């Protein structure tokens, strides 16, 4: 499993971090606009896959993808 984020779509609402905090963190952006997701674990082990799947599914902006 490899996760990618499309930052043009992310508006930092943080649903992903709530769902899988081991994998996603929401950080302030440099320009002071929306916060942005940061993937802290790009290739999580299988124990986390279910959580990551839900995070991807529930991102309201469909900004996350599993490759």
């Amino acid at each position, binding site marked *: 499993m490899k996760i990618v984020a499309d930052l043009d*779509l992310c508006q930092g609402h*943080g649903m992903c971090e709530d769902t899988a905090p081991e994998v996603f963190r929401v950080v302030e952006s440099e*320009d002071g606009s929306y916060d942005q997701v940061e993937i802290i674990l790009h290739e999580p082990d299988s124990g986390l896959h279910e959580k990551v799947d839900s995070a991807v599914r529930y991102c309201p902006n469909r900004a996350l993808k599993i490759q």
Partner: protein
Amino acid sequence: MSDQPRPKTVSGAKPEIGHYDDFMEHAAHFLYRAYQECGELAEFDLFGAKHVLLSSADAQEAVYRASDDQVSAAAPYQYMVPVFGEGIQYGAPVETERQQVRFMSDGLRPKRMKTYAQVIAEEVEDYISDWGDEGEKEFHDTFKELVLRTSTHCLMGSEFRHRLNDEFGELFEQLEHAISPEAVIDYQSEAEAFSTRDEARARLQEMLMKSVNERLAANAAGNEPPTDMLQSFLDARYKDGEAMDHELIPGMIIWIMFGGFHTSSNTAAWACLELARHPQYQREVIEEVDKVYGNGEDLSFAALRELPITEGFVMETLRLHPPLLTLMRQVVNQPFEYKGNVFEVGTNLVISPYVSHRLPEHFPDPERFDPHRPQPDHLFALIPFGGGRRKCVGNAFAFLQVKSILTALLSRYELSLVDAPESYREVMPSLILRPSSPCNLRYTRRK
């Protein structure tokens, strides 16, 4: 001549005014005709200003992914500056404006939604408590009144909400009258609507500043700050650590109200109209609502839950009736290229959810209302809230409001049409798509 591709031009331009009459008459229908005549790229002219409608998910994506220094939102929307004020939104530098939108999103975080859900539930249940066993209502105006209550309550807090009188709604309406196709052409003209706009804006500043000052005093007295947007704006900080100038907060409130008020109330009205038109889908939504309410949950909790059938129904409503459908960007700094077409600096790029949502490659048999349609795979095909970095900041809040209204209504009543089905039409007296008036529906207590 080079063989560079060029968009086709929409028919019917008149000397000097171009397509202005047709655009004014009904922007949605004009833009749909533009697409039908010209396809993916359709050029038209409003008083000499060149506009290109882009109608494909790929073209929409290209515009939404372009940066602010390629396509500017501020340039075509300058007519909003007298409405919100200098220093706010498009009256501020883009770096400031982007941070102000972040302030809004801070005030709309998932954690805060629970509080808003409670406020909305209370307002909705109170509003319909005296509806009795059956009756008829004009649903457009009904929801306007209701959403004015829910949104002022969540934005400005309960003191402001309970002082709310007709004046606030009327002033707001005067601001809206100035948002018209005429304004798009010349928002500084001598027209009466524009002087009324400026007077209404000044009076709103006074009313809202009163609440700002009261809140500052309450905070200084050590009261627990409430969860509402006003407090978020007071707590917000730019990246240099500065707070907002308090005089700008009324403009922020007006801005967020403009984004959320008619869009949400119209969506609720359209959704009820579609429920009444389609009894079989209404039954499905009612079944889902009963499942949640049947468990003894209260409305605020129910509306926060995932309700896939209800949400699908609202999404299909937004597909066919997107309240905002003339989304504009202007090419700035250097020409913008799409598939070999070159759009010069100054060209207005138009994206219309009304048209995109009728593209047969994503929505077969597009005019048919079908809440079971699968979501298109393309991320930029279904765009009632826009897309990219400027996608609607209030979309979760909008869903919360509309779901609360539908859930409360359908747990008590069934809805049906009052007038002949064909008498309910879509009209555009302003730049917002709404059901024709009167939008009368009958509600009957469920057995």
